[in-house]
């Protein structure tokens, strides 16, 4: 076997093979299953077989109001949450990059939101958002205001969920940006300073360009995860009030596990997959993977 391995040409192939096999193993059957059932009306009844309905589940993508609602909620959430997280993460990283190196324990502390189990994060924020139990609302009441109904007010519910996501995931972006900034080469900046470039110009022409790879990967990962938001909705709002926080993943969960309309859930999942693939393709294209 080692003869094969030491040939450089084949070595690359064998190095990546185990990973590919494992991924294939776990994704091939689910994809086949999902594609297969998207053409059927799933039946939970032992006496009634699954009914082939062709493209009906896909046609429903155009007509189902609940689906459209979930889709627009999810898009809104993704765009707003990731933009804010990115701005804060990058901004803060730029601000503190020189100082924080010396005190790495601060980095670890700032990462704590990411380390707590999402279910515990959601529960904690449930308390922090409650009308009378929350310290925030307690402060408001003492100052003479009405408590804010973070998770019950249709206007506040989605921002509340976004805020929790920001709290939890900005550290991730912060860390990635910090890493990117730490590996910036010094010469271009020295040259720029000699040329009299302003800090803003340095940022725009040098930093922003150098950080492209990090930014792309970070944004991509965050967007993929934000698009699939489930945990917070499940615990904090259950898609409410009045369905304003119903996200795609939560809606699919209801359709799959409560209504057992697997075919419709499958069609929606394929849609989600397609959207994510398109967005990622655009991002990855900018990364220049040909090597």
């Amino acid at each position: 076997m080692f003869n094969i391995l030491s040939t450089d040409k084949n070595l690359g192939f064998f190095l990546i093979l185990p990973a590919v096999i494992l991924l294939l193993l776990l994704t091939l059957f689910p994809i086949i299953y999902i594609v297969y059932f998207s053409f059927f009306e799933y039946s939970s009844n032992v006496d009634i077989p699954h009914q082939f309905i062709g493209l009906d589940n896909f046609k429903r993508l155009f007509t189902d109001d609940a689906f459209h609602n979930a889709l627009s909620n999810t898009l809104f959430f993704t765009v707003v949450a990731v933009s804010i997280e990115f701005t804060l993460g990058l901004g803060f990283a730029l601000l503190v990059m020189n100082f924080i190196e010396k005190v790495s324990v601060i980095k670890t502390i700032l990462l704590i939101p990411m380390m707590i189990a999402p279910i515990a994060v959601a529960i904690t924020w449930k308390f922090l958002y409650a009308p009378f139990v929350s310290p925030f609302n307690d402060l408001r009441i003492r100052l003479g205001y009405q408590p804010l109904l973070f998770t019950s007010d249709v206007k506040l519910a989605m921002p509340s969920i976004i805020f929790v996501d920001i709290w939890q995931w900005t550290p991730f972006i912060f860390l990635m940006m910090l890493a990117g900034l730490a590996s910036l080469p010094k010469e271009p900046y020295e040259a720029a300073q000699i040329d009299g470039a302003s800090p803003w110009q340095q940022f725009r022409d040098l930093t922003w360009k150098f950080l492209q790879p990090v930014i792309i990967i970070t944004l991509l990962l965050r967007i993929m995860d934000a698009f699939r938001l489930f945990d917070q909705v499940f615990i904090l709002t259950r898609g409410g009030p009045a369905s304003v926080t119903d996200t795609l993943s939560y809606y699919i969960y209801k359709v799959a596990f409560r209504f057992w309309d697997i075919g419709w859930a499958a069609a929606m999942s394929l849609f989600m997959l397609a959207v994510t693939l398109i967005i990622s393709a655009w991002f990855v294209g900018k990364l220049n993977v040909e090597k």
Partner: protein
Amino acid sequence: MLKNNFKKPIVFLSIVFAIFYTLFPFIYMISVSFKIRKDIFAMPPKYFNFEPTLYNYWFTFFDQIPFFKFMINSFIITSVSTIAALILGTLAGYSLARFRYPGNLKYHLSFWILSTRMLPPIVVVIPLFLFFSFFNLVNTKLALIIAYTAFNIPFVAWMMRSFFLDIPKELEESAMVDGDTRMGSFRRIILPLAKPGLAATSIFCLILSWNEFLFAVILTETEISNTVTFAIALGVTQYQSNWGYMAASATISVIPIIIFAFIVQKHLVRGLSFGAIKG
């Protein structure tokens, strides 16, 4: 880059604010874990004037839920899947960084690897349940290990690929000229340099495996394979949830991760660095 003198206080203040904002909910959760039920829901809230109790922690470990067993399960599942993901992912990343592939294969392959992370877990869990049932792997630690390894590989592969791209090819090439094999030079030269990358990436893998909820609930049944995250969720009942217990178990559950993070914190930044100029 910016070297203004009055910047220092601003930076200092923002760091302090960031720490407060980060830790406040966390400390709140810990405080809940020390309160009796009546105080947890006190309207208005009781900040410091409550009688602390260790009941919730006692309940976590010594009441009906076999929390110790769950922690051991989590330890095993998380560490094995993280190590497996690191190994498979790093080799894959190295392959993508250093080797030539025919035609456009490299682009498609790396994209495909990334795309496996895009499926919403909600729907994937049903066919995977069938898949694992077929092999009689439901309610085993192995099923979760396999699943979490697969979840983590894309991230590891992409991170390590970028990391390897940063390391000049010349290092291996000169070693090979001196008579070493490719894998030998990988082991002796590249891998030690890659430690920061591995350390940083491992944190994210650990967090994902340790805290994962959906698969841990659907693919497990009993204490043979239940995890700590599942244990926390057991606090939720249809009528009233045992918040004190959930806060206590969540606090305990986060401690191992924090400890690990402290151990590797030196590498956290170096390890995620990217080729600034190269891609």
